[in-house]
């Protein structure tokens, strides 16, 4: 598999996905549109790791702007239905990798490769230096072989950053895998378990059984908020992405069409050539939901749905310590045409979207997923750790 869009340091221990800036290293976010773009500064998370002596091994391939399932539609990749960062971590070549979770591609990638990825609570890790698409729900997170590895890197990168207006005030966060899990209560969402194929379901059952063996109670509950959350996030995410990628217009940097006769043609030709089909679909969808005629019924309603979902999930998490759910519908994706991508991605994101929509932490581990209360990452990591330890 083609892991890297650009390699930087042979004995580096941390890989960084190509939607995160590293000073001087070409960063294209998997898109032709940003071909040759060299950032003038590094992402805050990268800087914090480098200050602690970590070396960045290189920029791993991502799907264009992280919009696809797991990275299959990168302009620079080889089209494999695997996450380059997750596979690299699995191979053991690096200790961990940084990724941006906007619509679950990172969590799906980790699940398919059998490694961990944590999307932390919104606002705990600086988004400074992230090629931003959906500001209200994207978070920078960590891939590692296991929960312990995630906790180590997270403890370095999390904490307030003045350069990000959405960064929470807490100076530092500590992450551990040592929270006692015995006596904790976890629920499985019936509707989502039903969407999973036999392989994923087997992983979910095995994970639940392992938890039970550690003294965790696991119950199945019914909840229809995930479909609702997925639709709301689809609308908000596409709208925000449409807006944020509008700066890639061929005027200042990145790809510019060779042929144009005026400014309108410069815009249209550069963007037509620079973006892939999926990005264009997201732009059109996002543009539509923001238009005057649709705003109230789509965008504005989604903002209200966000509140309703947050309250509903809060109720569940008042009763249970964590939610156990699939991260993907399948344990392995098959190749498909990019023209089907928009539908496929937003069908699959039913498992992941709620965490982006309302900002709660979500951990992909052992091929399944845990979600918890805000700032409860250590509990999620400890639950996963208790299962991972048994597997060793």
């Amino acid at each position: 598999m083609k892991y890297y869009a650009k390699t930087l340091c042979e004995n580096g221990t941390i890989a960084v996905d190509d939607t995160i800036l590293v000073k001087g290293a070409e960063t294209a976010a998997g898109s032709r549109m940003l071909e040759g773009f060299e950032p003038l500064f590094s992402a805050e998370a990268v800087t914090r790791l480098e200050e602690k002596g970590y070396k960045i091994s290189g920029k791993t391939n991502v799907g264009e702007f992280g919009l696809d399932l797991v990275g299959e539609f990168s302009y620079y990749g080889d089209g494999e239905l695997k996450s380059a960062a997750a596979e690299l971590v699995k191979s053991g070549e690096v200790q961990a990798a940084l990724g941006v979770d906007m619509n679950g591609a990172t969590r799906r990638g980790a699940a398919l490769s059998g490694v961990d990825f944590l999307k932390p609570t919104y606002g705990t890790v600086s988004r400074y230096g992230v090629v931003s698409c959906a500001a209200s729900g994207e978070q920078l997170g960590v891939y590692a072989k296991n929960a312990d590895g995630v906790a180590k890197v997270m403890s370095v990168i999390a904490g307030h950053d003045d350069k990000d207006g959405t960064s929470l005030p807490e100076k530092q966060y500590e992450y551990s895998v040592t929270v006692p899990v015995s006596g904790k209560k976890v629920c499985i969402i019936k509707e989502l378990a039903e969407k999973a194929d036999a392989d994923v379901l087997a992983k979910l059952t095995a994970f639940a059984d392992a938890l039970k063996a550690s003294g965790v109670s696991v119950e199945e509950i019914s909840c229809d908020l995930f479909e609702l959350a997925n639709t709301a996030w689809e609308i908000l995410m596409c709208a925000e992405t449409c807006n944020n990628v509008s700066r890639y217009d061929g005027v200042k940097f990145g790809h510019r069409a060779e042929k144009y006769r005026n400014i309108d043609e410069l815009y249209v030709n550069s963007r037509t050539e620079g973006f892939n089909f999926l990005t264009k679909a997201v732009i059109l969808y996002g543009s539509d939901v923001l238009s005057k005629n649709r705003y109230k019924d789509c965008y504005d309603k989604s903002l209200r749905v966000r509140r309703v979902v947050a309250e509903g999930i809060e109720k569940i998490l008042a009763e249970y310590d964590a939610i156990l759910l699939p991260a993907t519908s399948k344990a392995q994706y098959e190749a498909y045409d990019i023209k089907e991508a928009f539908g496929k991605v937003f069908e699959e994101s039913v498992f992941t979207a709620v965490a982006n929509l309302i900002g709660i932490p979500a951990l992909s581990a052992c091929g399944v997923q845990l979600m918890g209360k805000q700032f409860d990452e250590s509990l999620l990591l400890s639950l996963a750790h208790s299962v991972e330890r048994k597997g060793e």
Partner: protein
Amino acid sequence: MNMKYEIVIGLETHVELSTESKIFCSCGGHSASNEPNDCVCPACSGMPGMLPVMNKRVVELAVTAGLMLNCNINRYTTFDKKNYYYPDLPCAYQITQLNHPICTDGLVSLKTSQGARDIRIKQIHMEEDAGKLVHGGNYSYVDFNRTSVPLIEIVTQPDFRSAEEVVTYLNKLKAMFRSGGISECEEGAMRCDVNISVRPEGSTEFGVRTEIKNMSSFDAIEKAIQYESQRHIDALEYELEELVQETRRFDDASGKTFAMRNKETEADYRYFPDANLMPIVISDEWLEQIKANKPEEVDEKARLYREAGISDKEIDMLIGNNKISKLLDDVVDAGCNAKDAAAWILTDCAGILRKDGKSLAELEITAEQLSYVIKMVDAGNINRGAGKKILIAVVEQGVDPEAYCKEQGFDAKVDTAMIESVIDKVLDQSAQAVEDFKNGKTKAAQAIFGACMRELKGAGDVAIIKEILDKKLNER
């Protein structure tokens, strides 16, 4: 035919705020930059990875402006993105405020030749400026120095009824914002969109509205309103053209307005909340702090000046210039008469500067220097002409007035005996002129007076010198 029409105008005024840095990044010195793109960072040029971080000073200045315009200060205020493509807009969206502007529902009272009028302020919101395009040869160039420069936009209700009212309002805003340290309101730092319609007098319905975009000279605004309102009236009177809701531009050279785009082709800006900027909450403490730092109300200051006998024209000049009004206040504090001191500054100092091609804003004189000169004249030690001579030396060469007086011999003790002895001396030397005077040539007295003044070298009060001279001439 010959129906009477009423002109209805609403204004949107963009004012550049006097802050050290841009609204969402730390780039500074944009107003002093000469080279294109020398005041630009990854944030204000739209590079990926940069996030906007709110400049607190912008909020404070916007709140101060709101307080001056009697607005409600909204304690919860948010930013929205306005989407449109233009090469001078690096992100292809402008960060502005739509749903929760910082100030709403204000009021400004005007006095014009048509009487008094209250103008309601709909809202004040904060936003970032766009860059600039420079066209040359086969290329267009983009200069981002101005992108993200902080602006406030002040939106009025359609309460103006004449161009005079509009210009009076703009002058008032300018004076307020200068004195309040909100904006220097230099050329181009204040830009207006004018919404205009006409209706038969007495009607309560609004006519078809057109908007004239982006004018910065008050002169142009006045002309544009006159032209456009007449166009509307003509359209209604003679039915030569149908008025449509549209955006127009004013062409200074021809003095006419031209259509830019109409309602059908108007862009959908797809406004939506900016998720990168958290809502700003203005606490009681913060608001009190801003109120405490707010400079004295312009109206209050104007009232005090008026009571001191300063003319309205002079008050306008003073209110519009914070530095000059402070100089006056300090000179008055040093014990000088306000009306007199205002004349020294606005007539004498301004005249000296004008001669050198400078404006009053460039005046370099301290309150101590100016009050020394004024007091010398008031005490009768020197006459006003000599005072002015000293003033020129102070303003042009920055000399110390006290030392200069000594050097020029203005410091001698001046009393009646001294003046009398000088006059006696002159009369003795001007026997022929005295003779002519006695023979009825009144002009001869003038020559003698001139000689006395020359001899006195500016010492003494002119009226007293004249009185003594008259007495002595008649005695001879």
